[in-house]
């Protein structure tokens, strides 16, 4: 798959994440569209391609964010790497597996973001974050993953013979 197409997809998703998605709040939180796309791509295509999507999506998110640069990229990179580790063995089975992957992926993603923000900006309130943000986001992302995974799988099916090359 062309890296330029990857850039186009991730740029569009990051743009939606900063404009449309914050308007769709459920239980006070909004879904992590870019995270769901990275997990879906890693599950379908493995760590290497997942990490490429993670870096593109993360950099664009960091440029839009008021948080210190690199937080989203670093966290998404870890998620992209770990989500794609079992790709060859069992991840292509059905829709249930990516939904099961997004729950721990969201937990790791949110804990990393919260931890890095505490470290770099001094923002406190771990209890509040766990109850008000992390748990509801895990639920919202697991529902949203159903739609995102189906769309990402369509892209995968269209491009599955193409290796990513520059």
């Amino acid at each position, binding site marked *: 798959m062309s890296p330029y197409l990857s850039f186009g997809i991730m740029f569009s998703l990051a*743009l939606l994440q900063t*404009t449309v998605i914050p308007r769709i709040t459920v239980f006070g939180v909004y879904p992590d569209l870019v995270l769901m796309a990275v997990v879906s791509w890693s599950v379908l295509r493995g760590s290497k391609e997942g990490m490429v999507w993670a870096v593109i999506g*993360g950099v664009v998110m960091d440029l839009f964010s008021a948080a210190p*640069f690199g937080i989203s990229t670093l966290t998404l990179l870890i998620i992209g790497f770990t989500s794609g580790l079992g790709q060859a063995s069992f991840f292509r089975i059905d829709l249930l597996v990516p939904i099961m992957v997004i729950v721990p992926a969201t937990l790791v993603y949110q804990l990393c973001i919260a931890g890095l923000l505490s470290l770099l900006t001094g923002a406190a*309130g771990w209890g*509040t*974050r766990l109850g008000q943000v992390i748990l509801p986001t895990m639920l919202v992302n697991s529902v949203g993953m159903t739609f995102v995974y189906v769309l990402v799988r369509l892209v995968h099916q269209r491009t599955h013979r193409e290796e990513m090359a520059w």
Partner: protein
Amino acid sequence: MQNTRSRSLLLGVLALLIVLGLILDELGAIDPLEGLFLQITTPLQRWIDGLTDRVIGASSSWSDLRTLRARNQQLETLIDQLQIENVRLKEAEAQNEDLRRKLNFAETYPQYVLKAAEVRGQVIGSEPNNFMAALIIDLGKRDGIQKGMPVVTERGLVGHIQKVGANWSKVLLVIDPSSSVAALSQSSRAPGLVSGQLAQDLSMTYIPQSETISVGDVVLTSGMGGNYPKGLVIGQITEVEQRDIDTYQNASVRPSVNFSRLETVLVITTFEPLDMEQLLSGEESPEQTDESNP
């Protein structure tokens, strides 16, 4: 095996690059790239935001009709109450004006007069992660915006400018957990520190035990610390937590601004926030130097 090694190597290299990016960001080296990126994407964000507004407006208008009748009834009752209150306030205002004139108050204490030049900015983007509360607005250096300037709406305090580009600015909201504002209760003048709590909520801490605060008190900025001008409305106390064993009292504060429905904001451009870093390092600003050496 080789595949695993190359994957790990790629992860390591990318992680190193990101850490390098974090360091460069701290040094301010990423700012030009960020500025260029946001300058390019701002029109696109503005267009998507406008489109979203139209879509949400069209879809919600049908469901709104059902609640409109009940809401209208409530508003009519509220108008009646407000008209009575308005008469009372006008009377108080006239009396206040008269007293001010007599005491020559404004001339004696010019710092009590809030002078504010306002510019109106359109909210075009929001923070992509759930842990921060920030906005992007379509005003920047070319509109006279500077870092630290307070951002308000007609309802009260929104936050302050955190980063500025040519045609964009990032606003850190008061509900962000890293945000704190020196505040006081309007009725009892009890001081405290208002901090962000996420979930559109605020908490007021460090209220001395000797002070009396109660539910419903309006919380204002106190001007202490020099980050915000005095007298901006922050919110209203909804809960008081007072225990004799604690050194201070705490309170929950409901912000006066509805942050989920922000469309336009005002930036107070005549207020110059105090640079605490410069103050602590003991350096004098050029203006101060000029004043001290006439």
